[in-house]
């Protein structure tokens, strides 16, 4: 049992509506910036997003092409494995359903998302479809800042937020699963906040 420190309360943690927030999380009004490395500097002129299927065939969008795609607005709660949750965040982006439309994804079951700067994270293909994931470039009505993953990041709010890869540059489809950055360093392979799947072994 740890030694309680008189007079210390920690950062103000809001009380959240019951059932709204996954176990072990607290609500914050901030939007903390977490990074495993330096913020990459990516110009829109050089930005590309590429989906590579299991045969190695590539589909690529330049920023202009990406920007011309239909977008959706999503208001979602986000949950970081470091225990903060932020409610009702609004994003605008291109649905993965739109991006994957026309791509033969068979026989892939798994996806590795790749980011500028080298970050990776793995997600089951089924978790990116059905309206559950976007490549988002607008946050709270403004272009997504580099600190928060701009020009564009993956947004997969039903999983812990490390899966929502900042500075995303593409997806590679695989038949077999393999762990990405945090998954290989001790975090859970899937990362469902509602089952509190933080660490491998949970």
């Amino acid at each position, binding site marked *: 049992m*740890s*030694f*309680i*420190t*008189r*007079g*210390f*309360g*920690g*950062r103000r*943690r809001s009380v959240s509506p019951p059932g709204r927030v996954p176990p072990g999380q607290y609500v914050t009004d901030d939007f903390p910036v977490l990074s495993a490395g330096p913020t990459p500097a990516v110009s829109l002129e050089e930005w590309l997003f590429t989906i590579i299927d299991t045969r190695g065939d590539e589909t690529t969008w330049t920023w202009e092409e990406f920007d011309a795609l239909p977008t959706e607005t999503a208001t979602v709660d986000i949950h970081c494995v470091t225990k903060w949750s932020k409610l009702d965040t609004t994003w605008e982006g291109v649905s993965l359903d739109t991006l994957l439309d026309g791509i033969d994804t068979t026989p892939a079951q798994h996806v590795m998302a790749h980011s500028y700067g080298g970050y990776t994270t793995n997600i089951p293909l089924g978790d990116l479809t059905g309206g559950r994931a976007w490549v988002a470039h607008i946050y709270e009505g403004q272009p997504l800042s580099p600190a928060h993953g701009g020009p564009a990041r993956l947004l997969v709010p039903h999983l812990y937020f490390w899966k929502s890869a900042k500075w995303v540059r593409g997806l590679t489809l695989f038949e077999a699963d393999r762990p990405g950055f945090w998954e290989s360093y001790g975090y859970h392979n899937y990362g469902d906040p509602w089952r509190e799947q933080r660490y491998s072994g949970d």
Partner: protein
Amino acid sequence: MEGTAVQRRLTWLIAEVVDLIEETSRVRSLVLEVTGWEGHKPGQHIDIRLTAPDGYQAQRSYSIATPSDGERITITVELVDDGEVSPYLVEEVRRGDRFEVRGPIGGYFVWEPGEGSPLQLIGGGSGIVPLMAMIRARAAVGTDEPVRLLLSARSTEDLIYRSELGALAIDADGLEVVATLTRSQPPDWSGPSRRVDREMLDETAFPAAGRPMCFVCGPTGFVETVATALVDLGHEPERIKTERFGPTGG
């Protein structure tokens, strides 16, 4: 290797606050008595761990500001706007309060009297703290190796340990202090008034030819600018030791 000695280093000890010193309007020193403390070297730091009633814990690192003195150690904490731990340490903590500490930590950014001379110390803001432990150790032991301290602060009101440094410098035992005030200066200020740069180091630091041992401490940007400038001036990288503080305390 003695089992108990290793155990003690790895576990959290309890520190009791025995004195509080208001250094500036935003900076406070906490004098702690730590049962089981086995001593430390100038430049080392402690980790502190605070636990809220609901079990929430926060940990931060703070450099020790004083040389080894039995079970007594002093840390100097700067209030960080919107901080989580520094408001507690600077504004809430009272004499008699206790919290967990671990240490001493660090074997690289350390200096003891008699080592590496001349000694060039460069501190930005609260980066002065571990350098002060070095200066105080030298004053306590009475060695006289030449030491130059270059400090950067926003204003004279923000200069931590201002009067003590003034008194030590006047003692003329080989300690020279130069301060640069980057935001506001008193009307009679004749010192520098800009951020530390290569030119200021060229003018005020020991020349590279003398192979001083350099210790640079402060925010990351400050440390990297200064370290790069020192290398540009010809100082050997192996004779430049750096410690970067984050905005949430070092």
